[in-house]
Each structure stands twice: as C-alpha cells, then as structure tokens.
C-alpha cells in the first residue's frame, strides 16, 4: 500500500516537503491552520539577496505541488498521537487522518515588537516593524511615513526580540541583519535623497552575496551603520522619532532624529509548535524551537521515529535554507518509510 505522510504547516517548508515527498511516490496530506497556504512568505515583498519577489517565490514553490497532494486548510491540529506503527492526527473541525509518518513544518512567529516598549511600537505612529515595511513596499503606494510625510531620515533597529534575554530570546534570528540591509537599499531606491541609518550590535552577513549587498549599501547608497543597541526612542512635537543609542565605536552616547523607525522583529517558535511538541511528548529546549535528533547529522529527525521536522520550527532560517531543509526532510522520511 502507498505510504501516507501528513505534513503539518503549509508555509514554504511544508509545501516544499510535500512536493518532494509526492515526487518520491508518497501519498501526502498537508494541513494548514490558515485559510490560505504560503505562511509568512505571502506577506513578504522581496527576498534577499537577489530581491526575488515573494510572490514569484511562492508561485514557484506552489507550482511544484502535484494534484495527488491533499491540501487541508483552515484546520488547526488539536490531536497528534503515535498508535503502534502509525499516527493519528485530528483537527479542531473534526478532520482526521492516519499517517505512516508526520513532518512538522510549523515555522516561526514574528517577535511581538510591542514587548520592547522602550522602542515605541504601538505608541508612536512612525515606529513600524520590518514586516510592516514589507507590506508598505508591496502596496506600491508612495513611500510616506504614518503622518503622510516623506521621511528625510529612516532608522533600522537590528536585533529586536533577538539576542535579548530581557524578552527571553537568547538566540540570533539570523536573517534580520541582511533583511535590514535589503530593506535599507529598497528605501534608498524609493527615496534617493533620504538618509538611512542602521543601528546594530554585530552585522552577521553569513550567506553568499550578503557581504556584497552590505558593501553595496555603503558604496552605492551611502547607508550608515552605527554600532550600538538602542536604549529608547521618543517622539518630538513634529512626530519625528528621537533615538538614543551609544555609538560604541566612539564610546559616546548619540542622539538622532528620524522620520521613520523600522524595528527588525526577530523569529520566535510559532505557538503551534509548542502545542504539537507537547502532544507528542517531544522535549522542548529552552529557546522553544524543536530539537532535532542531532544538530549536525540528523537535522530532520526527532527522538520519535516517524516524526520529522523541517524549516524554521527548528530555528531561524532564510527561505533558501528552509527549502533545502524541506527537500532534505523528504529524503529522511523516504529513508524511514522504505526501510
């Protein structure tokens, strides 16, 4: 009999895993809590480092799905249980499936920037998040701040909700540095006369062509990088945001006014991830992301045979890393089911 795999979560990781599993000859059902598949990618305007449009990326991923794959949307998984050599999975709406293997692709959620109250998100209108900025880019409207003005200066704050034990997130979200560089360039393309500043602790340009993009940001767009973590932002009477930061390379406190402040919100494990690991009795590690069987060798396996993981549920990843991880998970599943 054809083996059945249930993939939980239909973001880039879930879709790519499903497509790969179907190509390997498995019967696949992918279940998604939202009404529409695509996860965070459907709200993202452009991807680093080549500015590929999020829409095109998602279209390309979706094109890989063949007609045998069952897509079950608007279904939140509320039950997941290992029974003998198979799993039963059930949803809040009564949906139920049996599977020979399960792949968790539950992804991440964006850090809620309200929690860093001192940065003023939700308090000052001209403090927005990196996700808000992507929406603004995608809308293709004229680039204005929330007061309807063209901002003369734009600031980007790195590590919001990342590398910060005050919000219980010790981890680095990995993609925000290069996203800030990408978004800073996009802002300069829309507003060539604007001045753009990035406030960072470290710049982690780990991927291929990331350092090049950073250099281009400096050389071609004159984007300024100030090393220091923001202490606070306040609003002046014109609605500008006044930022306080230590310029740690000069060893002096610095104050600067910007017309728009963008917070680079980090990645946290999705709420659904925790619920599922609890159902399965998988160990949660302190950062909340799922712990694979081995972080070097068995990155798609878990301690439960037949339960696999892919994408950002095991830690922050770029879209390209997520897709590669998804394809790798499909092979791990095949290895398990064919043995």
């Amino acid at each position, binding site marked *: 009999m054809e083996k059945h795999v249930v993939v939980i979560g239909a973001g880039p990781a879930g879709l790519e895993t499903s497509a790969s599993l179907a190509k390997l000859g498995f019967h696949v059902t992918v279940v998604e809590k939202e009404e529409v598949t695509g996860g965070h990618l459907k709200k993202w305007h452009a991807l680093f480092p080549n500015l590929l449009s999020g829409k095109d990326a998602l279209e390309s991923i979706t094109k890989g799905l063949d007609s045998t794959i069952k897509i079950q949307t608007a279904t939140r998984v509320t039950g997941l249980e290992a029974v003998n050599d198979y799993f039963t999975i059930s949803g809040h709406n009564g949906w139920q499936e049996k599977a020979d293997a399960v792949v968790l692709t539950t992804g991440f959620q964006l850090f809620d920037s309200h929690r860093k109250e001192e940065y003023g998100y939700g308090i000052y209108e001209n403090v927005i998040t990196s996700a808000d900025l992507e929406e603004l880019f995608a809308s293709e409207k004229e680039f204005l701040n929330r007061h309807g003005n063209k901002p003369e200066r734009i600031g980007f704050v790195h590590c919001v909700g990342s590398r910060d034990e005050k919000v219980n997130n010790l981890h680095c979200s990995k993609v925000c540095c290069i996203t800030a560089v990408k978004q800073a360039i996009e802002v300069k393309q829309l507003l060539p006369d604007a001045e753009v500043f990035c406030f960072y602790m470290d710049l982690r340009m780990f991927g291929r062509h990331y350092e090049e993009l950073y*250099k281009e940001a400096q*050389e071609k767009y004159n984007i300024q990088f100030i090393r220091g973590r923001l202490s606070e932002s306040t609003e002046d009477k014109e609605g500008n945001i006044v930022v306080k930061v230590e*310029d740690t390379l000069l060893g002096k406190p*610095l*104050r600067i006014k910007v017309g728009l402040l963008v917070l680079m919100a980090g990645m946290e494990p999705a709420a659904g991830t925790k619920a599922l690991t609890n159902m399965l009795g998988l160990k949660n590690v302190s950062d909340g992301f799922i712990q694979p069987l081995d972080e070097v060798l068995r990155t798609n396996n878990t301690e439960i045979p037949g339960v696999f993981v892919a994408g950002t549920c095991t830690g922050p990843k770029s879209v390209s890393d997520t897709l590669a991880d998804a394809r790798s998970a499909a092979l791990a599943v095949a290895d398990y089911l064919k043995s």
Partner: protein
Amino acid sequence: MEKKAKNFGYTVTRDRQIDFDANNHDICKIVAKAEPTLNLCISCGSCAATCSAGQFTDFSLRQVILLLRRGETKDLDKEVSKCMLCGKCQLVCPRNVSTRNLIIQISRALCDNRMPGLQIVNGK
C-alpha cells in the same frame, strides 16, 4: 557678564552626547565626494593597529572616520595632523579604503592653511 558668571564658582559641564542633528555634516559630504572609498570603512581597526603615529599618540584613523561621519569635526584638524602619511594603513585595509588620500582630503576640507605641510604634498 562673562566675568560675573565665572565668579559664581561653578562651571557648566557640556554633555558628551553626540547631537547628530545639531552637528555639521558638510565636511563629511565634501570628503566623501573627493574620496568615495570613505563609505567603505567597516571600522575594523586594522589601520589604527598598524599605525606608526598611533604607537606614540592617541591617533586612530578609525576614530577619525567615525567622528567625521557623525559630524564631530571640531577637533578633527588636530587629530589628522598627527598622521605622518606613511601609508601603512592603506596596505592593511580589508575594504581598500584609500586611507592616505582620505587623510589629505579631510585636512583639505577642514582647513588647508592649518596644515601647510599637506599643501606641499598636494602640490600646491
């Protein structure tokens, strides 16, 4: 008035904060135009580590560039005058900043006549 104020027996301490909006950014713009590799600096400190002048004074090109970028140009002429233009920094810079010309252009932009030695270097 000035004298009276002094007689009160206290002084006003100027705060150390860089007031970016109050600072003058023209010098930086002039220098960046004359030597565009200024924008490539990543503050790694290689220049300052190899600097001969830096062995004997507190001169640091890394700091000079940052002060310039922040518009803190008040005492910058004194700083750059410590440079001997030996060019070792240019050999070590990982981003190929034209450091030697950068110093010259900073001096020029700040005030040519305060550094007569540099005028000769520039063939004036």
